[in-house]
């Protein structure tokens, strides 16, 4: 595709997440990296994180969840890199590894996009037959359904149906107290946070439910305030009354 001059594209309800230059946080990151001619495999995270935050603030992308999530990820990696490493710790895993893998993968996609865009532009130099004769009053094309296809579809549908058909009560109580403590810890250091901050990385359904009930309870008690930009947009959790500097 040609230079990124396309108008702002509104991809999602209400949110302008795709500015003329960037199709997402990875694209923005990649842009920062190539602009500064940085080595992807040895990313100076602190520097990149600062630049990323500066750009999303400047472009007012700081309300879009995808960009915020990436910002949080960068800051987390930055923090992890600052942790002292014990000597002889061979198994140390570079906290940047996953991000680097994703960036390389994304870079590859961008290269393919260039190729596809070029191919599409070349194809557009040729026109096919424009005249479409009105189809004569022919019967519609015959429909083919094989019994096997139908049965395969039935099997797929069967597999969709959740395993335990009988309802069983799982004796696993919600941990609302734990979730409450967790939320309070997060809010002790930060004025506001997001949903992901209070449920953790790989929440189970129980975690999600616990956190949700805890949030509602804390909101009811006036400890925090919950807001949402619009339907389905990320939940913003804010401390109700800014405490005196802790």
């Amino acid at each position, binding site marked *: 595709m040609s230079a990124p001059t396309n108008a702002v594209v509104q991809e999602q309800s209400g949110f302008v997440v795709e500015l003329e230059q960037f199709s997402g946080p990875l694209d923005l990151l990649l842009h920062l990296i190539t602009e500064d001619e940085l080595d992807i495999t040895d990313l100076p995270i602190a520097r990149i994180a600062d630049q990323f935050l500066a750009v999303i603030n400047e472009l007012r992308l700081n309300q879009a969840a995808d960009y915020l999530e990436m910002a949080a990820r960068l800051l987390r990696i930055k923090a992890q890199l600052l942790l002292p490493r014990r000597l002889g710790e061979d198994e140390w895993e570079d906290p940047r590894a996953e991000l680097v893998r994703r960036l390389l993968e994304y870079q590859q996609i961008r290269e393919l996009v260039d190729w596809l865009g070029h191919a599409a532009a070349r194809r557009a130099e040729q*026109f*096919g*037959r*424009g*005249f*479409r004769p009105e*189809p*004569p009053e*022919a*019967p*519609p*094309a*015959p*429909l*083919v*359904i094989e*019994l096997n*296809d*139908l*049965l*395969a*579809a*039935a*099997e*797929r*549908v*069967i597999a*969709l*149906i959740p395993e335990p*058909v*009988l*309802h069983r009560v799982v004796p696993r109580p919600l941990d609302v107290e734990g979730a409450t403590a967790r939320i309070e810890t997060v809010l002790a250091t930060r004025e506001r946070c997001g949903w992901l901050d209070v449920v953790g990385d790989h929440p189970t359904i129980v975690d999600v439910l616990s956190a949700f009930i805890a949030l509602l309870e804390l909101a009811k008690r006036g400890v925090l305030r919950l807001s949402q930009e619009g339907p389905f947009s990320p939940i913003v959790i804010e401390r109700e009354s800014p405490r005196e500097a802790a």
Partner: protein
Amino acid sequence: MSPLAKLLEAALFASSRPLTVGELLTLEPEAGETAVRAGLAEIRDAYAAQDHGVELVEIAQGWQFLTRREYAEALDRAQFALRPRRLSPAALETLAIIAYRQPVGRVEVDEIRGVDSGAVIDKLLERGLVDVVTRGEGLGRPLLYGTTPQFLEILGLKDLDELPRLEELSVALRPPAPTEPE
């Protein structure tokens, strides 16, 4: 063919309607009307002389490529033979649910598939594979769907009893018999 004739040929081919000499002139205004007319005659003669399956015809105050009359029948026949249509996986799944669970409402189909099935059901209705057979009890008396005789015909079945019984059919696909409340 001359360069102008080739350009005219490309335009007449790509256009969705007959083009007048005036319109063709906009392709290369400095060529002049006489040259455009000469180019059109050149194309017409070239297609006639070299014995092609299409011809350039003067029609509706304009010019248009048309397939030769003698192929009309073969093309008409092919028109519907060209693409025997198949159902998409989504349509087959929906059809399977309706076939095994009929009469069944849309909400139930949605629940089983886990996605909105409105558009798919509409297409199946349009193709005459399912039809509204009755209305259900309860709120809003929802429309309930079942398969049509055409469904059986396409599958080559005499009646619904000939649909294979899947022993492993799980509860949700069995007729809503007395299952335990969830």
